[in-house]
């Protein structure tokens, strides 16, 4: 089956800078980011569902998260 590719290539988190504030997880409207209770840090659990809305990046108080988009977009053709 010709499954469309994902909207993003990669979501990078610099864990040494991350303060564990959970803003990125809360900001995600696609359940991409979950929480690792043991480390008290976020986990990029479902990167295939990220649509680079950038709410996590914009909300991060220490700017330690970066979303790398897939361009061109995997936009569904209507023709």
């Amino acid at each position, binding site marked *: *089956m*010709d*499954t*469309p590719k994902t*909207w993003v*290539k990669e979501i990078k988190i610099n864990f040494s800078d991350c303060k564990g504030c959970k803003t990125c*997880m*809360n*900001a*995600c*409207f*696609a*359940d991409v980011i*979950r929480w690792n209770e043991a480390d008290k840090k976020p986990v990029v*659990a*479902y990167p*295939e*569902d990220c*649509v*680079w*809305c*950038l*709410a996590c*990046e*914009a909300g991060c108080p220490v700017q330690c998260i970066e*979303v*790398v*988009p897939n*361009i*061109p*977009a995997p*936009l*569904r*053709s*209507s*023709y």
Partner: protein
Amino acid sequence: MSTLEDLGEVVSTDILIIGGGIGGLVTALKAKEENPGADVLVVEKQTAGWAGKATKIGGILAFLGPGNNADKFMDFQVRTSGFYLNDQELLAKYINSSYKAIQEFEEWGAKLAKTPDGKMVITPAFWAPEWSTTYIDIDLMLPIRNKARKMGVKFLNKIHVVDLLKKSNKIIGAVGFDIITGKYHIFNAKATVLANGSCGYKVRRFWIAGTGDGIAAAYRAEAEMRNAEYGNLYGHTVWQDTDSGMVGHQFLVNALGENMPKKYLSDESPTGVFLPVQLAVGLEKEVAEGRGPIYFAPPPGNPPYVMRTNLPKLNDWQKRTAEKEQKYGLPPDVRREIGVPLHGETSCIKVDHEMKTSLEGLWAIGDTSYAGSAVAGAVASPPGITPGSGIMFAVISAGWAGASAARYAKEAALDNVGYAETKALKDSIFASTQKGKGLSPGDAISLLQDVMAPMKYNLRRSKQRLNEALTRLDELKEKISSLQAKDLHYLSKCHEVKSMILCAELTYRAALMREESRGFHFREDYPKADDKNWLKWIILKQDNGKVKLSKQPIPIDKYMIKPGK
């Protein structure tokens, strides 16, 4: 004897609001204002204040500004966009509520665009006469959520509500599951408000949250639906490479350099930001006949439309997006082929003038019921021909529903939730986690998009092709009996797929029944509007597992605006 508590977490509340986007939050505020003593609970699939669609891209708000003439705007809206399928009384109520809603945003602490001397930016809408626009910053929901918290509204996040609980014709709550822990939740409520959005079939990236969960739950509970055939806009995304930007269709050209709107549109065609039907069908024809692809080719010095505001979060988002496009995107000198995606907005729960559904104890607001309210008429909604109404309709309809539900809850009593029904729903909700090997929800979404996205089914409709689409949906319904969720995130997606397939079926069943062309419903086999037979709404309702359709005459005689001049 087994009790409800053996099945899961039981939560009782006066008012249950399903969805923590802008509509759900404002419903909560308005319910508390009406009845401060009421227990109000917002349940959200992701995180209230960030969820839904309102924070994406940035809010354009359209409204009746000071000095605008309501009658003239209404005349335009009914004749040019709604094509007489509007509930004109409710449209008038909406128009006249719009400026107050703008002022309330300021009171709640959301940031509206300002001129250098501190006045609200008000710009005439370019797509409609006697209509104004302004901008709101993309963090608009956070101050509203914080205010709701201060007023005592409770929140539960990461809970996917799947079904409503019903006793005779009355809704008495809902059930769902925690997408992190898997805990089953049973909500018992006096009044329930659906505020969890329209169905966009996950085609466009900023609209992926719209999966029609509330619409599907209401349909399964036998609530009536209306205007389901109107959920099908097509946009031209100026940058195919990022799915951004949807203005300037006057600059579309084919591979030969021919201007597309000049070829396919008359001068009187509505402008809007979406593709008029004739133009969209024209683009499909150009590509089919070998004159594609279609490019966006503005003349030099006429760059694509960019919102310029002093809103800090919106500016930051625009800057980040531009940087990503520069860093990871195509070089600037590459010719930009446009994308023409389906912009699904199935929002068909039928509601009255207080946003009450046909079921006692159930309200539906915002994008769950925008088309079903008949405010917009023969066009997918939001945003129809007149964009800027998505957030506005959510907020205004939330005001009506919040107050109405709070008044109802004051007089109503909690009904007992039955064990057997709740246990059966639990078994059904978790069924996809029990199976061995089966269809993944991602593959099911892809198969659904094969049926919903093509213009040949969803815009250039005919009896033969609609039947073909419905057959493909039937085949898909067979296939999803083997849906498999490898964890709770995917279980949530399994339920999203089921909701979306149901919304798709409602769309095509209604489209097959409407044997005329009107607004965004275009039938090649019935290319003209038929005012004699079709000034009617199509009502859909579940009946013994099947979609039962009927026609409801529009009370055009009592409305101000009638066909003809």
